[in-house]
């Protein structure tokens, strides 16, 4: 029987230079399935929630275009867009994933009610407003919040959008230090969730060091996409693109 061609992931991209590093949304190597990227014309990196909300009509229009082109799921490469998860997701018929925070309540149950460590870039930019937009509250789910905002290496990555080898070593070390600090303060953390779409570039090294699960936007998108393709015989890999 012929394998049907797989519908792609649609990514709504801000205008401007984005990190083209494996693990980042703009990079071809990041996803094991077909991807369609759509620059949202007239968008620019929002500096406040108000600026993000002002872009909602542009995002809805671009999401509907992607849907017409037959994508299997839609995401965006901007964290503040996650404030509009519900409004954006309600306008199309395919799954929409704007943040890894969407999985926090389910994950909290998988780890028996243990604390969830939230990883971000600037900790002051993440709080109850973001959690509520993802459908939960830190009143109900114990969390710890940590970020790389004080790290020189991560600020370099944020500015240059590039990761030369010597910077990678420092990025990984600085991220690991943040994670270890969170674990020292909260030994009851059962799993981490990375809210930031820049961190996946270095998260596998962290997973291998700490031995706790770390979920991010990529693991969330892999789940969303696997709803349309997950063969029962997975010896070739459940997400490997069908030939």
């Amino acid at each position, binding site marked *: 029987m012929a394998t049907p061609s797989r519908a792609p992931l649609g990514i709504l991209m801000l205008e401007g230079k984005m990190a083209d590093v494996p693990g980042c949304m703009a990079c071809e190597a990041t996803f094991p399935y077909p991807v369609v990227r759509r620059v949202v014309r007239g968008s620019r990196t929002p500096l406040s929630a108000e600026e993000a909300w002002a872009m909602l009509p542009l995002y809805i229009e671009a999401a509907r275009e992607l849907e017409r082109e037959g994508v*299997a799921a839609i995401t965006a490469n901007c964290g503040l867009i996650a404030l509009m998860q519900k409004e954006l997701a309600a306008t199309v018929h*395919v799954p929409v994933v704007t943040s890894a925070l*969407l999985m926090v*309540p389910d994950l909290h149950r998988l*780890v028996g009610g243990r604390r969830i460590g939230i990883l971000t870039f600037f900790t002051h930019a993440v709080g109850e407003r973001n959690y509520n937009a993802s459908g939960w509250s830190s009143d109900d789910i114990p969390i710890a919040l940590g970020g790389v905002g004080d790290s020189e290496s991560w600020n370099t990555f944020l500015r240059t959008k590039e990761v030369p080898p010597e910077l990678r070593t420092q990025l990984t070390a600085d991220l690991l230090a943040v994670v270890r600090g969170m674990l020292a303060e909260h030994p009851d953390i059962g799993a981490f969730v990375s809210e930031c779409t820049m961190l996946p570039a270095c998260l596998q090294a962290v997973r291998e060091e700490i031995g706790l699960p*770390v979920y991010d936007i990529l693991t969330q998108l892999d789940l969303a996409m696997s*709803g349309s393709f997950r*063969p029962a015989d997975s010896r070739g890999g459940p997400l490997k693109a069908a030939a």
Partner: protein
Amino acid sequence: MTLGILMLDGKMAEVPGCMAAAATFPYPVLRRVVPGARPPASAADVEALLPLYLDAARALEKEGISVLTENCNGLMVLLQDRLAAAVSVPVVTSALLMVPQIHRMMPARRIGILAFHPESVHEQVYNACGWSEHQIPVAVGGVAGSEAWHEFLRTKEIPPPPDTLRPRLEGDLIAVGRKMLDAHPDLGAFVCECTLMPPANQALRDALGLPVYDILNLLDLAMRGLFRPATPQAF
């Protein structure tokens, strides 16, 4: 990284897509039969299994598993919180545990719940998964009216062609999905609660063009917390 699976005592389906088949998972798996554990028929049966499952879960944890599941979903989810609290790794006792996040991905759509016996999923089961049908619109359907699915349940085998069981299983499952769609045009995705259905779920996805999430999707997610490189190859 290794997935640990607690298995009921007795013959289990070794068909790709089922928990007992080696081909189902693209990562290492450790299975452990829970001696004396028979398929539970009631909440009381499930409660009686708790001590056996706690012992077996802790034994698998000592062997270094990364995620724990068991091969008979359904009512076993009533043990979710207690099993998950007893071990340090993520525990997955039902695909219904991911319904809240699927709902948030498509908040304007209804979720179709697929089970073997539709009457076996209800508010008590949803509550054990952390949600309520009063918050999340669902429709429930099942294959209990299908002769083919009863044959699979009894024999635990899907013979190769020219045997016709596989096309009958797929056809009957697709018919159930279509009927649910006809009754609920706002249905946006299916979540499949039954661990016998994954062998036929790709056919359902391809036939209806809607996402179908089952226990394998959720286990893959749970396992990816341990391994999801920035440049993924096979997994």
